[in-house]
């Protein structure tokens, strides 16, 4: 199905985040693609290039770009002409419905997505013109945004920088706990707890000290850590989650401290 059937003379039909457009050199006549400069531009973009958003660049007709670029200079007549042209195109873009340009109800869902993407690009064009001569910057910004969304959809999560950092912290914490544990406890279900050396309380009171505990579950690979406070009898009086799988946890104490209760 040709999702561009109803696009008509919309110049933003160069923007093809899904790589669906025809790449044939012979543009199909009678399909609504009735703007020659745009056809010529678009036919030079291969499907591979369109699929790779890092390389993908919008191709505006030279005439439009020169109008935009000339807005800052030239004679008064040229400026007036450029401003009129700007008004014409700005109104043209604004006339498109929110659902996307020329995408009709019941069309392919990809066409709907395309319409939204195209609308964003259209807004960027308007913004770019509003700023005077920043059209390419605006478009590029929008395309980068679209590209990020596209890559995020394809991502498996393993590319995340945060994941690598968390994994490094997780393994580092486990290794440190194993090397420095003052006491180790193996639970019946296989989990192993490493108790760090107890830190004594600096002021006298019901709490004797606290210990940093790291728990490793060999079955799941999960690593968690928390601070355990001990009463004078050695009983656990309070716990405070600190880390789960390398990611620090901002959790309250159990039971809450006076400060957390606002006392």
């Amino acid at each position, binding site marked *: 199905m040709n999702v561009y059937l109803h696009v008509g003379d919309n110049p933003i039909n160069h923007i093809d985040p899904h790589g669906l457009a025809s790449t044939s050199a012979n543009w199909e006549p009678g399909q609504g693609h009735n703007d020659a400069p745009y056809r010529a531009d678009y036919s030079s973009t291969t499907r591979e290039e369109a699929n790779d958003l890092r390389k993908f660049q919008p191709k505006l007709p030279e005439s439009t770009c020169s109008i935009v670029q000339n807005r800052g200079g030239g004679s008064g007549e040229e400026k007036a002409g450029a401003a009129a042209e700007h008004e014409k195109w700005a109104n043209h873009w604004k006339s498109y419905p929110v659902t996307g340009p020329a995408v009709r109800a019941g069309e392919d869902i990809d066409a709907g997505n395309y319409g939204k993407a195209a609308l964003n690009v259209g807004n960027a064009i308007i913004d770019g013109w509003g700023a005077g001569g920043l059209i390419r910057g605006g478009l590029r910004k929008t395309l980068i945004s679209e590209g990020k969304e596209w890559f995020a959809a394809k991502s498996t999560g393993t590319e995340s920088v945060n994941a690598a950092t968390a994994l*490094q912290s997780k393994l580092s914490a486990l*290794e440190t706990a194993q090397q420095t544990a003052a006491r180790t406890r193996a639970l019946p279900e296989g989990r192993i707890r490493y108790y760090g050396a107890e*830190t004594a309380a*600096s*002021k006298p009171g019901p*709490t004797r000290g606290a210990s940093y505990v790291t728990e490793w579950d060999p079955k799941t690979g999960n690593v968690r850590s928390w*601070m355990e406070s001990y009463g004078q009898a050695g009983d656990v009086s309070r716990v405070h989650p600190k880390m789960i799988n390398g990611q620090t946890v901002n959790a309250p104490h159990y039971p809450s401290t*006076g*400060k957390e209760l606002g006392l």
Partner: protein
Amino acid sequence: MTYTAKQFALGLRNQLDMGYDVKRIADWAHGEYLCHGRSFAPEVQSVVMKIVAMDEGPQFELSEEDIRRLIADISGS
């Protein structure tokens, strides 16, 4: 590369220069433990845990003067 007591003291002093905030300083020390725990010098572990434990209640809190004294101690070691 070993993470020395002097490196920890330098970071701790920077944190203190940003203001005396027990939770922020304790969280920073915990971050140092997670990131550099494997390469801690033997004497660093207990000092770091002392700072991390500050968040566990008023009985573990060190005053600003206590922390500055601690920095001076470990910097000179």
